[in-house]
């Protein structure tokens, strides 16, 4: 009989812990009513930003994708439109971060990255909404509200993450 063993590294433990925090934050956010339907602060993204800046982008990608899947399974929305909205938002943000990862840290701090990612998130969700869920041009009427909320929450999340990073400086 052959035994297959999985070597679990410290890195895997870190990813698991951070993903768990991200999932918990997503769930807390889910139970808070939002003043405007569709506008959510996305506090789980604080954890993902934190992961990217404290560790590296690869780890951030892991945490982000795990968060989307685990949250949807817990809430029972796996493979539902909500899940695909969330997934496409996450994928677009990650893609934008991969594209812009070479911005010089001399001029750009995590505020820029957070804003770029939050804009990409809204674009990703809008693509899915326009192509699949509500295939009507009328929804573009709502786009300015979503861009504005992406700006506000992108900025707030960046400032919170920055505070967290100050409290836990990179080793």
């Amino acid at each position: 009989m052959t035994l297959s063993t999985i070597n679990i590294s410290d890195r895997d433990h870190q990813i698991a812990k951070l993903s768990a925090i991200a999932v918990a934050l997503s769930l807390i956010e889910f139970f808070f009513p939002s003043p405007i339907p569709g506008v959510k602060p996305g506090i789980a993204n604080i954890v993902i930003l934190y992961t990217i800046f404290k560790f590296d982008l690869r780890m951030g990608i892991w945490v982000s994708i795990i968060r989307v899947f685990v949250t949807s399974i817990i809430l029972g929305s796996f493979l539902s439109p909500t899940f695909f909205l969330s997934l496409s938002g996450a994928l677009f943000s990650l893609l934008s971060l991969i594209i812009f990862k070479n911005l010089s840290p001399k001029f750009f701090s995590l505020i820029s990255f957070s804003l770029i990612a939050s804009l990409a998130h809204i674009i990703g969700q809008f693509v899915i909404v326009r192509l699949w869920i509500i295939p009507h041009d009328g929804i573009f009427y709502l786009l300015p509200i979503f861009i504005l909320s992406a700006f506000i929450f992108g900025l707030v999340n960046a400032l919170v993450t920055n505070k967290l990073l100050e409290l836990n400086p990179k080793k």
Partner: protein
Amino acid sequence: MIKKILQSFKVAKAGDWFIIILFFALIIISMKLLWNLPQGQYLEIYKNNEILATYSLNQQITKTISGAKGETKITINNGKVRFSSAPCAKKYCIHQGWINKANQIILCIPNKISISILGSNKNYDSINY
């Protein structure tokens, strides 16, 4: 509190301010572009989902149309239009009030009459959806 928030902005570097300004510009441009609905020019009246008549909005006139349940009155008043009387029970169509922007619609389901405003050019059809 405000001082603390302002202090946290100290981490922002030159590029961050550039991105913030860019984002602001994007918000303003998107509002200008997407919230600037053109004024309507023409009114289409539908009965049983078929076009019954088209009128210019630049006039003052009340039209009476007989629908499935009775007579509906539609009032055009220099650029805007509303249902002024309807035979239906809940009068949702009347409570919609005046409409004047292109692509706005009002439906009266019980009487099977709907009105739709057209701009100078038709960019999409609200009735289709």
